[in-house]
């Protein structure tokens, strides 16, 4: 698929939120949003797109559980520490180690996933579509769509309240500023 990238610049917060809401039905992908202040309304509207981090967390947690239980059981087996006449390989005491490593590995995996999917750190900041006004008083939405859909999407952005629409990352970007 040949894709095109567009940047919608908004003065109105309501218009900005409305475009985020409607983006799914327009078959466009939101690459990034820009806001001068932390905006949980926008984040909530984006939340419909489920984060892949949960899979990383689950994988980390399961790996931690297995590692913790294996560590405790194998250590006991190698060293044969008999305590209170209990069997060397018992499930009761290893639950604690398994639980602790589930939390530890789950948390570390989440952190790693956060960095990876959040594209942190921003070594190339500002990204291509960033404009200084997004740190002042404007909101921005960086969209990706099929090239054939570019003009209807541009029209939709303007009709939705965008004060400016730019074409991003293409040789014709400059002439596309409207």
């Amino acid at each position: 698929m040949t894709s095109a990238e567009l940047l919608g610049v908004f003065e109105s917060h309501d218009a900005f939120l409305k475009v985020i809401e409607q983006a799914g039905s327009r078959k466009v992908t939101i690459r990034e949003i820009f806001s001068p202040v932390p905006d949980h309304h926008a984040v909530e509207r984006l939340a419909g797109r489920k984060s892949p981090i949960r899979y990383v967390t689950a994988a980390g947690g399961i790996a931690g559980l297995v590692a913790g239980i294996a560590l405790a059981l194998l250590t006991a087996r190698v060293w044969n520490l008999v305590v209170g006449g209990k069997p060397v390989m018992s499930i009761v005491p290893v639950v604690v180690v398994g639980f602790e490593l589930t939390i530890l590995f789950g948390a570390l995996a989440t952190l790693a996933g956060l960095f990876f999917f959040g594209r942190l750190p921003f070594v190339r900041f500002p990204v291509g579509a960033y404009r200084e006004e997004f740190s002042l008083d404007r909101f921005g939405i960086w969209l990706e769509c099929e090239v054939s859909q570019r003009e209807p999407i541009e029209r939709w952005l303007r009709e939705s309240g965008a004060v400016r629409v730019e074409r991003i990352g293409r040789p014709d970007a400059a002439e596309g500023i409207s």
Partner: protein
Amino acid sequence: MTRDERIRKVLASGPADPGKGFVLTMVLMIALGAAGLGLGFFAGAANAGWTSILTGLVLAAGIGASGVLISAIFTLTNARFGRAYVRLAESFAGFMPVALVLAIVFVALGGTSLPWAHDAGHLTGGKAVWLRRGFWDLRVIGALLLSFSVSIAYLYYSIRRDWAAIPGKLRETYSGIARAFAGRNLDGKDQETERMRCAGRLDVLAPIVAMVYAITFTMLGFDLIMALDPLWYSTLFGAWYFIGNLFATMALLAIVSIVLHRPLGLGAWITPSHRSDLATLLFAFCLVNADFFWSQYLTIWYGNLPEETGYVMKRTLDGDLPWRVVSWLSLVAFLAFPFILLLFRRVKRSGFLLSIVSIVCISGIFMARYIEIAPELLGIAAPARLDALYVPFASALLTFIGVLGVGLLVSMRVLRGMPVMPVGDDIFHAVHADEGDHS
């Protein structure tokens, strides 16, 4: 929306009215409770009725004190999402009189059912002094009164802070015990000064409520439950009991906030996001409860001392006794089921699904308390099959349902005398100013 507009919006729907459907359901639950009690006393095994009353008592006392404790925890932690739940949690103080009545009835009439009361001769040393009826009675009633008094003091300042934030005319539409108790003598005073004074007192009282709760309910756990088998002991038992109360109360809070969402007009203040936060907290308490359970079990398992392991084996392994089914069901209900389901965001945001999970959590805690109390009071001897437990268990379950019915009815009466949201709380206003007020 300004602060004044928000206060008027909270008060616009008038005093809390849960609706006829809710009241009828509670009346039906009370009827079931009465039937259960009758079943226990007249058709069950010996002491089945007192087992039901004691189980109802330990749960009602726990819910009554934990409701106010949850509010104190939200104050201590400056919890933002929790502000919308503060008043509902505080209304569970309605369980306190229910618990007190049950305690007085049990101490006055049911004390003879205590296993150690008949056979105190074999107790020696400090235990013989500790488990003496007069001393025991005094401790039980005293601990309840102490815990409830501190909770009510906290409740007083919490409600009064809100009444002090409300203009005089708007207060007039409210009546009821909480209004008369905490909203009096405000006319002619500098209301803002009074509001700030009350907020300051709450900051001081919140940690005191938490500490008094931990101490008194540890003692109550020892005296009301653990002492039923006077030879068995676990220093963790008190903590295991009081954390279970908090867990069950959190689950009840989730249910009440979902069921009364529309009748109490909570939609403007409690969003699916807040519900998800409460469910996450419920999940956390599920883990803490399991942590206390496991810490106690692990210690007994490692120690492998006959006087400790007998208590656990009787309830979980002995095939000649009917208890193990209830024990394992309890473990599934308070740990496995909520642990798995509360991992899912959809469950946490759905009122229906969260209600189901919460009901299972409360059932799990009920069964945990039952399995700690019933084997000692009922004295079912081996060999006995599961059917020996049908009537006593049904009696205790129905009685607990009745206790919930009475407690929630009284709670709703308490709620009628105060605004359903903490309108005198600065954080409540800050949260809604930040999040934007919902329609």
